């Protein structure tokens, strides 16, 4: 209430163009906004609220699905080219094409997965028509496992077993010419595969300021 009265007085003072009379009955603070002496300050947050429940190892394991570039998170099991060829035909070819050439049209496009054309100069920035594929653009082989496990096939995401995923990965890497068809893909071998585009990726050098990068 005192605050409201004081505000009115301030407005009246300003409107009347009489000097710079401030609220004398409130303590002055930085910025000139007063808080009456009988009003406490804003309550500071505690160091911890203790909301939520501790997540146990079972709860974490149920959702901790990622596999990273070092191979951490890749499960036991292994896969082969031949098994991958069979699975690709069943699970992937309907959308991505029998030879991984991609499919769909217009607004629904399923990406091309396989390319064997050499692109040593990494020309993608210059020409949007050159398809970026696993073989010529993906920098890490582990990403294939991580991504297929998350969300493929489109109509039944999460339905493939680890050996099935390893096999599809073996098939796609071999068809892209990255590894021989004899390669057995598992948690140990996958992170060791060096992708052709591995060294083409650079850190973001944009920093704001006048220079365009």
């Amino acid at each position, binding site marked *: 209430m005192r605050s409201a009265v004081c505000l009115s007085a301030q407005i009246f003072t300003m409107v009347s163009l009489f000097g710079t009379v401030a609220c004398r009955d409130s303590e002055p603070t930085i910025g000139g906004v007063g808080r009456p002496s009988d009003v406490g300050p804003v309550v500071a947050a505690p160091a911890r609220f203790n909301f939520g429940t501790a997540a146990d190892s079972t709860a*974490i394991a149920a959702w901790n699905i*990622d596999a990273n570039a070092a191979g951490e998170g890749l499960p036991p099991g292994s896969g082969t080219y031949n098994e991958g060829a069979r699975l690709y035909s069943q699970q992937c070819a309907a*959308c991505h094409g029998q030879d991984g050439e991609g499919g769909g049209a217009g607004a629904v496009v399923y990406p091309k997965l396989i390319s064997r054309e050499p692109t040593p100069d990494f020309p993608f920035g210059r020409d*949007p028509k050159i398809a970026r594929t696993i073989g010529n653009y993906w920098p890490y082989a582990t*990403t294939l496992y991580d991504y297929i496990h998350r969300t493929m096939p489109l109509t039944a995401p999460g339905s493939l077993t680890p050996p099935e995923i390893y096999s599809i990965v073996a098939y796609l890497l071999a068809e892209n010419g990255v590894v021989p068809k004899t390669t057995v893909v598992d948690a140990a071998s996958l992170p060791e595969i060096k992708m052709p585009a591995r060294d083409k*990726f650079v850190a973001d050098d944009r920093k704001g300021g006048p220079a*365009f990068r």
Partner: protein
Amino acid sequence: MLAGAAALAGGTALEALESQSAKPSASALPVPPVGTAVGTPEAPATAAVPPDATKIVGAPTSPLSVRSPFETPVRTPVGVVTGASFTPIHQLSGTIVPSDLHFERHHAGVAQIDPNRYKLLVHGLVDRPLSLTLDDIRSFPPVTRTHFLECAGNGRTAYRSPKPEMTPQLVDGMVSNAEWTGVSVATILREVGIRDDARWALAEGGDAAVLSRSIPVEKLLDDAILVYAQNGEALRPAAGYPVRLLLPGWEGNTCIKWIRRLELIRQPNMSRDETSKYTDPLANGTARQFSFVLDAKSTITSPTYPARLVKDRWTQISGLAWTGRGRIVRVDVSTDGGRTWTEAELQEPVQAKALTRFSHLWRWDGKPTVMMSRSIDETGYVQPTYRQFAEGRGLGTDYHFNCIRSWAVRAGGEVVFGVPA
């Protein structure tokens, strides 16, 4: 399999999209077929209303207000399960985008999530791994801020295959702006206690894409928000209901929707969306990775196609400007194809990492010309010309299309999306 995919494509996703729109009442005009509004003038409204509203009692009160039957803004959905819906930025005023017109982009359909069963798991390099319910998240002190959200691929079609008959909706409709409410990620990280070797966090969605991105911890501690409300009400499903991550000023793809997990890690995961996608192939034969920040940009929203100017009549050139690096400090407008520039007026308040409305008064002299806008942000960054951008990044670059847009005025006054200059 293909038939199944097609059914999924044509069915659930589009129905989910349409369920986001406010349904007009029975007496109102039906919303035009989705996808037909862009590139053509809006159909004239012919709703039945009394000739004199002062002589007839109006409609009763209602639980939900709906738009006037004369106002039928719609988004433009493209794609399906892996789809996007573009915001009609040319039909909006001010800077806030109504929630049902906010652009959307999703990679495996719009997830349908029961808020009573929702959980966020925070674990990894932390002292106290936590499982948080929606109620837990809403119990923390809230923050409310206005920020833009933009898809990193916004402007791709206009850059790669511009057409004169493009509206601002198709040129730049994957940007929106809203008032977001949630809890600072910093608050949550203090709660779990992050360890010194935690440099990144994998943020993961609970949708069928289980979409994941690696985010530097510095950003999470700076201004990241776990958002549960947009423009005063709960998030819409397409916006990530019940909780999404918001990284102000950063690529929309990093603002993980339906977030279910935050894992503190040492090194980035190298997920698909930070390697195969959302990297920027450059003209010099490399590709930029983790290019999170959206640089300054501006786009004229009016007058644009299909408007027609009248000679010597005052017109407002109006549009939107934004930068992921703080505040917009100036927007310049050119009405002579970039030869001379004039400072535009900025609508206050100008907020950091939020859309800023600019306007410029102009009288067209009847001669063919080109309108442009360019924004300057608080770091001194100047929105690049098309030529600068094309030379620096290349014609095949895939994200961050922030070069100056051109709108040509033809001799008859018709305004069309202009050829690059």
